[in-house]
């Protein structure tokens, strides 16, 4: 990577250019600029302001744990196997963070992964996954189920 004169003279003259991000739990994390550039929300700010990269960029909606997961996912070029180790909460946290950070590739990847996970799951599993309260009466639900009984066959175990 080419460096400008100003950056050469900086005290922290790293091999790979990094940007410091400040997570919601107050952790300062140095992240490679190639990864940061996937985060449109940070990228647009850096590009417009030509900011001093040593000043932490605040991410009040992303925890250090979620940012760790995101960095690993991007480094591993969105590896399915790595993502399969995520808990349900971690999947949702990465989804929400990808949307907030405006990371289009990650958002598409994680939304597709969650869709694949839910595709053959029961209605009860979905309610539990998204923490949704069933507001149908038993009669109403039975009525909807009756109209399309075939869609309740061949499901995964919860």
């Amino acid at each position, binding site marked *: 990577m080419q460096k400008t004169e100003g950056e050469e003279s900086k005290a922290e003259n790293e091999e790979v250019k990094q940007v410091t991000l400040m997570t919601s739990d107050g952790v300062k994390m140095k992240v490679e600029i190639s990864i940061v550039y996937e985060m449109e929300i940070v990228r647009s700010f850096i590009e417009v302001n030509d900011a001093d990269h040593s000043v932490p960029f605040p991410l009040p909606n992303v925890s250090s744990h979620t940012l760790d997961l995101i960095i690993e996912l991007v480094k591993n070029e969105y590896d399915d196997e790595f993502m399969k180790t995520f808990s349900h909460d971690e999947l949702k946290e990465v989804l929400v963070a990808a949307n907030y950070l405006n990371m289009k590739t990650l958002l598409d990847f994680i939304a597709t992964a969650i869709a694949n996970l839910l*595709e053959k799951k029961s209605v009860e599993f979905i309610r539990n996954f998204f*923490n949704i309260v069933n507001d149908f009466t038993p009669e109403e639900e039975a009525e*909807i189920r009756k109209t399309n009984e075939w*869609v309740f066959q061949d499901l995964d175990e919860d």
Partner: protein
Amino acid sequence: MQIKCLKMKTYSRRTKNTLHVPEDLIIQILLRLPVKSLVRFNCVCKSWLSLISDSHFSLSHFERAATCTERLVFFEPSAPEVRSIDFNAPLYDDSASAVLNLNFLPPKPNDVRIRGSSRGFVLLECCQRLWM
């Protein structure tokens, strides 16, 4: 402020499935599901039923599905059947190569030509007539 955030984090880690996913992100997930799953998820709750039944949602779902598949239809007069092949399907997917039912054409058509195709419909010319 920092203390508040730390508290929230401990709370969300300890309790499971409490993270709220905004509706626009739930829509992003639903758009990627097949119709069979969507019909089942109609009875998750009232807001999902109205969302999935919404015409704008159906249209977006259709548009997405239509742009994601690329199938090749191949006609060969000497072949016993006409197949449609999906190049983006995984190897183990049985629907990657499907036999097309062309019973509506005259028996033993020997001069079928593809005149055009759009969104899964194929326009055929056979025996000086057009077929969809």
